[in-house]
């Protein structure tokens, strides 16, 4: 792959799960647009034995040991003073990041991020370290006096939802994490410019993963997430027939007020057998979170095809535009196929498959919230309120305990409800009947 002079990306992965994804990227799926700009953040648990985090991948791919040594030396930033990590408590993760922010900032500065680079934060949403620290770090970088390139960098966040079977506190963390990545701080300003959501259970279902080992299941899901990131980067390069630049990804969704997305992918299709239409139909049936596509108001459609097929005219940008218009009308919210749609055909010299990714956005969060809500309340109601605070302690390590203001929890709920309400309003508007053209023309003076 050739390195373009355009937008550069960097990855900041916080927490154990995100660290695994970043390590896998670094060892196996390196993309020149990201290159070496990868930072793994973790709390002290990993400091004691970082091998533990990457144990499975190292046993699976012994050749990665050298990369691991390099990562351990140069790319891992340990923060916080907690004796055994954040203990599944996002507030601990946030507090630790606040305390050690100078250390974290130094590591980020070493990545060499500049200009209009994209900072892609990755975290699992059920845990404490990443879920707690990433929204805080992102907010400080974006609005604080430590911004990397004030007002110029773009902040993307990749949040990974826990498995359906996981414990209640993970779903409590998830709701808080999603909200804090969407809006943060006293003023509730927009945090991430774009939030991408992926659900472990959903991805496992669409991939048909049947492995018994938890590590192998994570590994397969992580690979899929890395592929999604690569697909997202592809239309920004020189080989795109129609460029989707980073500002295309976040500016209009931010203006609209709904900026959550999920990837739907259909990769590895034989271009001699599959048409783009079929690949799109397959992709839309494989969203990475539980979603009703008919509620999606936005779609970024990225098609990567072997160059020879594009040269022979089998695939073309013009044809893709036509196909995606018909596809959007059929699959997205409203009769006109949502409110925002981009499509880009990217040629590849390296691949001989037809890969399609739809970045579905602005969809109803009902699927995700209904998956979390029961366990969210189960956990929340189990907490004791003491003078306007609730104390959350780690069941495995009683040393880890933290107090959260009830007011903060209420604010989080308020914000996510507010965001949901905007989303639902936009969906409703997209589904609205056509305007009365004659009346409107008259109104416009015709």
């Amino acid at each position, binding site marked *: 792959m050739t390195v373009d002079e355009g937008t550069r990306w960097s990855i900041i992965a916080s927490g154990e799960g995100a660290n695994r994804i970043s390590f896998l990227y670094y060892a196996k799926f390196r993309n020149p647009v990201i290159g070496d700009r990868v930072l793994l953040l973790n709390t002290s648990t990993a400091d004691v034995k970082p091998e533990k985090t990457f144990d499975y991948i190292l046993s699976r791919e012994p050749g990665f040991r050298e990369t691991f040594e390099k990562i351990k030396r140069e790319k891992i930033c340990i923060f916080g003073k907690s004796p055994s990590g954040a203990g599944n408590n996002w507030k601990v993760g946030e507090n630790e990041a606040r305390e050690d922010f100078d250390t974290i900032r130094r590591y980020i500065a070493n990545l060499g991020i500049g200009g209009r680079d994209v900072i892609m934060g990755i975290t699992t949403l059920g845990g404490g370290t990443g879920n707690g620290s990433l929204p805080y770090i992102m907010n400080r970088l974006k609005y604080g006096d430590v911004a990397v390139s004030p007002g110029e960098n773009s902040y993307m966040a990749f949040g990974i939802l826990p498995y359906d079977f996981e414990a209640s506190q993970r779903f409590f963390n998830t709701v808080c994490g999603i909200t804090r990545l969407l809006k943060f701080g006293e003023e509730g300003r927009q945090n991430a410019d774009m939030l991408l959501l992926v659900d472990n259970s959903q991805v496992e279902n669409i991939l048909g993963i049947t492995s018994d080992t938890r590590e192998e299941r994570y590994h397969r899901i992580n690979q899929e997430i890395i592929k999604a990131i690569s697909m997202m980067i592809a239309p920004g390069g020189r080989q795109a027939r129609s460029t989707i630049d980073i500002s295309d990804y976040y500016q209009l969704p931010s203006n609209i007020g709904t900026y959550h997305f999920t990837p739907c992918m259909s990769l590895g299709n*034989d271009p001699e057998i599959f048409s783009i239409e*079929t690949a799109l139909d397959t992709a839309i049936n494989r969203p990475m979170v539980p979603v009703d596509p008919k509620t999606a108001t936005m779609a970024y459609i990225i098609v990567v095809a072997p160059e020879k097929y594009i040269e022979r005219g089998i695939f073309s940008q013009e044809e893709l535009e036509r196909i995606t218009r018909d596809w959007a009308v059929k699959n997205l919210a409203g009769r006109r196929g949502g409110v925002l749609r981009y499509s880009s055909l990217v040629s590849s010299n390296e691949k001989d498959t037809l890969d399609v990714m739809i970045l579905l956005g602005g969809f109803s969060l009902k699927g995700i919230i209904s998956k979390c809500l029961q366990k969210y309340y189960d956990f929340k109601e189990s907490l004791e309120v003491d003078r306007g605070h609730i104390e959350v302690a780690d069941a495995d390590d009683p040393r880890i305990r933290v107090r959260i203001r009830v007011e903060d929890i209420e604010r989080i709920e308020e914000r996510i409800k507010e965001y949901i309400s905007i989303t639902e309003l936009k969906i409703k508007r997209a589904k609205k009947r056509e305007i009365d053209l004659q009346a409107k023309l008259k109104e416009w003076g015709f």
Partner: protein
Amino acid sequence: MNEYVVTFLAILGTLAVGFALLVRFGVSEVAYFGIAVLLLAIFGSIFYTWWKTQTDKTINKLKVEILMKVRDDYWMARRLMEDAQDLVSMEDILQNMDAIKEGLVGQKLYSRDMKKIERTVEKMTLTSIEQESRRVEQRLVSLEALAVSSYRPSLEKYVEELRGNLRRLEDAGYTIGERVSEFNIKAGKTAKGLRELIEKKKEVTEDYQDIVAQCVREATELSAMARKFGDVTAIDEMIARARGGGPEAVETLIEVRGKLREIVSDVFARQLNKLIQNLEKITKVLDSEHVAPRDRDEIAGILAYVKAFEDPGLLVELQRHETKFKNMVSAIIQKLDTRLHSLASDIKAQELSSKLWKEDPEIPALIEAVDVRHPLDRFTEASRVALEHILAQLDEDKAFMKIMENYPKVEPIIAQQLRDRKEVGPGDLTIKYADRFLTLYHLKNPGTKLVRGKLKVG
């Protein structure tokens, strides 16, 4: 110091010592001294004579060596100048060479034929022989320079003449283009000394003769072919004359070519058209992804090459390309057949291949019918039919492999559509081989029905 002074001083010293002994010890002691001096003088003389003889022998050897070198250099230079005489007269220079020789013989250094060194040289001093050697060497160098200055323009003229002859032969239609280029490279090389110039002349002459011989062979072949279309007796006689080389060979060969061209021009035009038509027929068939681009390019190369033929004298070349075409097509068919066999064994090993894949039973017989010994039209037609069947079978094989390979991805699409609509037709699937995917789905899911190409829930 002068040897006479030394001797005088030695005698004076001896007499002084003798006188001192006489004064100091008396006459008897001086007698012993005198005898000792005498003995010393005798042994000294013997030793001196022996030493002197040895030294003279070494000097004589040296003299002989110098004279041998002078002799060899002389004869070598003379031979070169004699060799150079085939292009330009070297009479004056050879006369000078004779003068050198006579001078050396006159000094009694060599025998009359200047082959042997005379014994009299022993009497000459080494210095005088060395001086003579240097003088001869200088004269040989200046004579060679003189020879080069008169030989070089003649050689250039000679090379240009050969070049002109070759150009005319090439213009006459002989296919000697590559050889002429090689000749020109050699002819363009610079040579400095006489030896290099003579070597160059030898090389270009040999190359030239080879090329002319090639033209003779070409004319012979063309004449043998033209015999079927006209009387070539006189032409054969001309070729025989040209075969001996000689100055008129080029003219003869040009004339021969012209006469043969007249005889074969009709047949050449017919054969050229025929070959082009046959090449185009096969080129069309080979336009398939199963044919290696290199193979296609080679056939296209022949077509482009023969399309440029205008000279009927290229009839032999035309026939050579016809043979090349046949061999190439035959090789392509063999290659494709090998692939067919390997694919067939892979496919037969797969489940359901008997229901989804068909093998063309005619192919072995069609390949058998392709024979390079057959006339061109018959060969091409057999090849075309065989290739069409083989390529269709390869399409079939590829389709089967693709269907099996992609079924895991297509299966959920069909299943989804069946769930949604209870019925799926090929038109509902925007994929290649949709009908065959539906058949495979039906075979794998006995609960479904396939009615007139449409898959239904059973």
